[in-house]
């Protein structure tokens, strides 16, 4: 019967409007055909296609129930959050649906009520949904920003910037979308992306000229989440962040670090620069701000720019960095990275993306330290990597190796997964081109290249060109080359390692308590010496004797000295073992060096020197 119903419903669903889809979905639900019911209900819940009446609310409950039964709790939670956000007055049916459904809606309501940030933005952001025309099993959703007249840049936390008006395919979930434009308040909203549905946002940014404003500049090391008056506004660094003139509570927090709390008062049109706050680990000392005075003066323009960024003089840093970028000799990836970070902190997300791309083009090995750079910046870099096509090659600049035993390691970085083909051409001018390696690569790879020719002898001395070609299944390609100089060289012997310094050794004995036995013996023998004449002499000859007492005193003093000097020495087995291991390791290394020297003596090596880097 279930199969018959499914066949009938599938036939009927095609071309149905949303109301009918909800009815059909409900019938399938009533018959227990949950797999059939879910796509019908999901397709029929389009709020633009009909009233949000009892059928719509019941269908929403049914969909959540079906998803929970299908062990898709997270998807059920997304639908529940979407419903709670779009239909705040939703009354949960506690009679017809099991507690799991009620819990899902309760959790969703609590999550939305908790604010999760972006409430002010919510009221100014129009949201609509483009539902899939036909019901079906879809797993992806999408997000699209409708541009208004304002030149706005947007990004999705954890995903990256949203370019143009194209829909960005996304997995179902709740996303934080940040919109920014010069002269407007930055807006942050949370929205759900549903499977098969494109969520469309139209931001109406609030202009800065509407009220008395100041601007906040603050950074932190490491990065932290910024809260202003209890509302999360993003991550550090923040530059030219507009805020109403007056006092505000500022908090910078990061898991594992003590939060930084302060009250700031910003005046109208004031640019309040707090510098870079040094967060301390939880339980450590207090945080402090570093200004430009903390930076050592240096003639290096890049260092001056970095110092300006540290002092949150972001605009000046951008100027300095732009000057550096204009000079080809100094157009290094670091400059582009700093420019990207500065633009991101100013809310210029599109420019940030462009500079990230430039950094990756200049050096595909470019990485950001997750401890120093916040998750949004890492997301931007990842997104920029996906949209950039570049190949980077790194190899030891000058090395010598035994070609029959050792290989020459090169590292390759690519921006997209693909296939690498590595060719060695030379020696110039008449050498031929040989494919020396090929490999699949996702991001980076280190390949040990053999420097043996076809005759199993080392390649001839001369100038070579190493080309690294990348291509992917879509036909995209990129390449990078290195010019090498290969020569013969007699192996040097390695120098023996110096013995570990005394400072590395640990104490092997510990002094015990003072020797009470020594004191007792000394005093005892001293008394004995003093009384010998009294005890041993005949009574008629007995007399006090100063010499016996002298020896007695000397013995007693010896006992006192022994009490302090004679502290027992207690061996410390752990330290003794540590010192032994230290000595043993050093001896082992030197034995290995001696063995290597024995092998190297008289061996002919191949020296590879990079003449021109890519």
């Amino acid at each position, binding site marked *: 019967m279930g199969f018959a119903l499914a066949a009938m419903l599938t036939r009927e669903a095609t071309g149905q409007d949303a109301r009918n889809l909800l009815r059909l979905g409900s019938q399938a639900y009533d018959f227990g055909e949950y797999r059939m019911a879910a796509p019908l209900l999901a397709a029929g819940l389009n709020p633009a296609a009909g009233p949000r009446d009892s059928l719509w609310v019941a269908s929403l409950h049914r969909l959540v129930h079906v998803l929970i039964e299908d062990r898709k709790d997270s998807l059920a939670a997304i639908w529940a959050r979407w419903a709670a956000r779009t239909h705040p007055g939703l009354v949960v049916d506690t009679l017809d649906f099991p507690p799991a459904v009620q819990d899902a809606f309760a959790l969703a309501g609590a999550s939305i009520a908790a604010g999760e940030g972006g409430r002010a933005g919510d009221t100014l952001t129009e949201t609509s949904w483009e539902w899939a025309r036909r019901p079906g099993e879809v797993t992806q959703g999408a997000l699209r920003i409708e541009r208004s007249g304002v030149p706005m840049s947007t990004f999705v936390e954890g995903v990256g910037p949203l370019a143009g008006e194209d829909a960005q395919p996304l997995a179902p979930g709740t996303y934080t979308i940040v919109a920014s434009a010069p002269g407007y308040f930055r807006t942050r909203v949370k929205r759900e992306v549903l499977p098969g549905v494109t969520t469309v946002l139209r931001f109406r940014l609030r202009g800065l000229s509407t009220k008395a404003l100041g601007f906040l500049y603050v950074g932190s090391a490491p990065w932290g989440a910024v809260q202003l008056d209890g509302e999360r506004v993003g991550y550090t660094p923040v530059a030219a962040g507009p805020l109403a003139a007056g006092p505000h509570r500022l908090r910078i927090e990061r898991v594992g670090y003590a939060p930084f709390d302060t009250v700031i008062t910003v005046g109208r049109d004031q640019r309040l620069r707090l510098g870079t706050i040094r967060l301390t680990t939880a339980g450590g000392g207090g945080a402090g701000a570093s200004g430009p005075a903390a930076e050592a003066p240096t003639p290096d323009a890049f260092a001056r720019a970095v110092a300006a960024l540290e002092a949150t003089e972001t605009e000046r840093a951008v100027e300095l960095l732009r000057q550096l970028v204009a000079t080809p000799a100094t157009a290094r990836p670091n400059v582009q990275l700093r420019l990207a970070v500065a633009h991101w902190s100013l809310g210029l997300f599109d420019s940030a993306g462009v500079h990230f791309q430039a950094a990756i083009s200049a050096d595909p090995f470019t990485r950001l330290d997750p401890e120093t750079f916040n998750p949004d910046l890492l997301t931007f870099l990842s997104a920029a990597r996906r949209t950039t096509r570049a190949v980077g090659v790194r190899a030891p600049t000058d090395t010598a190796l035994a070609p029959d035993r050792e290989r020459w390691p090169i590292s390759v970085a690519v921006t997209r997964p693909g296939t690498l083909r590595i060719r060695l051409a030379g020696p110039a001018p008449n050498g031929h081109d040989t494919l020396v390696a090929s490999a699949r690569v996702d991001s980076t790879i280190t390949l040990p290249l053999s420097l043996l020719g076809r005759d199993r002898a080392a390649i001839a001395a001369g100038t070579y060109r190493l080309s690294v070609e990348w291509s992917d299944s879509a036909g995209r390609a990129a390449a990078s080359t290195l010019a090498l100089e290969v020569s013969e060289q007699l192996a040097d012997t390695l120098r023996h390692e110096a013995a570990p310094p005394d400072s590395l050794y640990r104490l092997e004995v510990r002094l015990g308590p003072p020797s009470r036995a020594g004191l007792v013996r000394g005093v005892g*023998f001293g008394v004995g010496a003093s009384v010998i004449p009294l005890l041993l*002499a*005949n009574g*008629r000859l007995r007399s006090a004797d100063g*010499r016996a007492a002298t020896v007695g005193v*000397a013995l007693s003093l010896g*006992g006192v000295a022994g009490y302090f*000097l*004679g502290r027992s020495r207690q061996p410390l087995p752990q330290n003794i073992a540590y010192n032994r291991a230290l000595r043993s390791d050093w001896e082992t290394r030197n034995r290995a060096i001696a063995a290597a020297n024995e092998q190297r003596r008289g061996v002919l090596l191949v020296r590879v020197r990079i003449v021109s880097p890519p």
Partner: protein
Amino acid sequence: MIAHARFRLVPLVAVLVLAARSSPAQRVEVTGFGLVAGPRSAVLHEGVRETVEGVWLGAVLEVKVGRVLVSGTGLRGTLDPVANAVRRDGGEQGVLVRFEPRAGFGVEAMYTARAFRSAVGYQRWDILGVGAWVSVPLGDPALRAHARASYLPAVRVSGQPSPNVALAAEVGASATPRGTPLQIRLTYRFERFDFPGQPTARLEEFDRIALEVGYRMRR
């Protein structure tokens, strides 16, 4: 009596020598000491007390082989009158053999010849004794205390009968500065001799404080 005493000591010396010879892997230690001593002799005879004291200089040579130590001593100096006596020259030579069955304890035998010469005559003492010796560290191994108790069964004094009581005791301290072959000793020795006599006994004491500085060689 001396002859009898010597006869009794022969087995002990033989044991000591044999024990020394039988010890395997013996280490030989030779120490030479310079010695400055302050001896004093007191005699009570017929109610008159004579006392002399002075300074003697001498040397000690000790040879230790395994658990056996043989020591020879030589001293010479003068004794000045303190009460009812005349100035006299004096000196003594002695030999001591000690066997240490365990560290810090030993049994020993000694022979000492002591002589005095003054304007009124010459007197020689031949003393044979046996005893025990203990040595303990005073907390630090560089500091030690020692004590010696001796029974002197055979004593012959020229012009006098042999004493019916002859005992000796010695207590001292020694220091061996770390990292040096030097040894410093300060000792006090007391000897008591009671001679029979009529109508009153003749009582004699001989005691000595000595400071010794030695140099040790090992092989």
